[in-house]
């Protein structure tokens, strides 16, 4: 099975980072402080999550798994919101991204657990939490990119959008080009990742499974499954977010309502 790492192994690896920081300091790159802080954050955050997962695995009830999933969702929602230059004002700023992530990531993960992988019980946290984490993390990326493009493009092209409205375009048609563009922007990273998988990069999950002693073909099957889950989660999530967002940009009289974005006026 897995070769256990001792605390000294990690300490030795950290010496490499320290050397890098020393060189940065000596040569005045100015990055050493951030390097050390983020290295420390990695160690602390991962240890904490390890502790949380250990407790969660010991208390594998649906309640704790759901709670963990909810916390992950809310943190991801906050992250999506923080990445918007011109996000929607009020609850919409948090709601559009979070709702879309919830719909797509949870549906995809539950489907994978209940129908495809079928651990017993289906919410077994060793499967549910890493799977949800991977789907959620990527969906979050896609939604953040897509929404950011949607709102910033609507802001920049407001005169063209209104010109189309003046010509009698329905609101959906008036924003169609921007919506299409936002969808594409949201999906590009996962499309690229799928195209490069195995050729340029060995995906992290597969690498991890192989290190843990899983036969390569088993690890590959899991990786393919996860890639497909991520792609569909990201795709459906971005679709929902961009659709919801583009609806919110107009009111019931098909007026462009940029006053619903923050930082407007």
């Amino acid at each position, binding site marked *: 099975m897995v070769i256990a790492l001792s605390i000294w192994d990690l300490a030795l690896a950290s010496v490499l980072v320290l050397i890098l920081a020393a060189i940065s300091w000596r040569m005045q790159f100015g990055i050493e402080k951030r390097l050390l802080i983020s290295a420390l954050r990695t160690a602390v955050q991962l240890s904490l999550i390890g502790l949380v997962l250990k407790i969660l695995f010991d208390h594998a009830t649906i309640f704790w798994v759901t709670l963990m999933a909810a916390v992950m969702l809310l943190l991801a929602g906050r992250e999506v919101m923080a990445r918007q230059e011109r996000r929607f004002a009020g609850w919409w700023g948090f709601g559009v991204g979070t709702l879309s992530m919830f719909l797509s990531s949870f549906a995809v993960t539950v489907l994978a657990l209940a129908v495809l992988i079928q651990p017993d019980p289906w919410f077994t946290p060793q499967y549910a939490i890493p799977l949800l984490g991977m789907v959620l993390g990527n969906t979050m990326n896609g939604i953040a990119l897509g929404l950011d493009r949607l709102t910033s493009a609507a802001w920049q092209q407001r005169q063209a959008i209104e010109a*189309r409205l003046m*010509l*009698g375009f329905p609101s959906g048609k008036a924003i169609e080009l921007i919506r299409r563009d936002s969808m594409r922007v949201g999906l590009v990273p996962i499309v690229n990742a799928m195209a490069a998988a195995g050729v340029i990069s060995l995906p992290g999950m597969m690498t991890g499974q192989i290190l843990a002693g899983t036969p390569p073909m088993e690890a590959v099957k899991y990786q393919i499954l996860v890639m497909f889950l991520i792609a569909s989660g990201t795709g459906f999530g971005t679709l929902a977010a961009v659709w919801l967002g583009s609806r919110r940009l107009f009111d019931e009289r098909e007026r462009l309502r940029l006053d619903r974005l923050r930082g407007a006026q």
Partner: protein
Amino acid sequence: MTPLLSIKQLSTHHVGPLNLELAAGECLTLAGPSGSGKTLLLRAITDLDPHQGEVLLEDKSCHSMCAHAWRKQLGLLPAESQWWLERVGDHFNGLDEPCLAELGFDKGVMDWDVSRCSTGERQRLALLRLLENRPRVLLLDEPTASLDAKNVARVEALVERLRQEQALGVIWVSHDPEQVARVGTRHLHFDGNGQLHEGVGQW
């Protein structure tokens, strides 16, 4: 007889409340200092901005139809034309050759790159694009500000013809007193307080 366009107690931002009627075939000129509400009034009429009061096209209220159908019948030409595709022709559905010729183009213009058109050419083409919808009312926001004298005459002549032939109602915002006198059948002007008055006004 029902007027073509009736505006009742319309107010938006700092404009109004306004009452206004426009008969079929009438050309109403609208003057007033910059920022007095001319553009805001046109935007409220086409329901692009939230507003109070009512606007009726003949006996149909703005709210009785969906907004995009309303805007198709009330063609608003903004002061600055907007283009979003590469070729001029990509923005058109069909080709109205008589109108094209009246504005000084031939059909080759449809293959032009928008980026290579001058501001004035774009403005004339934008009018043409708007007319494709066959609006009942034309709302022109300083339509000839970027045109030379020859093209100003072309635009004025085209609008005049459509007004006569199709009983088009026109509201024409202009800063040029001579143009106001040439094209208008009735004149209104804004004061600095968002209110309308008869006449060409002094400003």
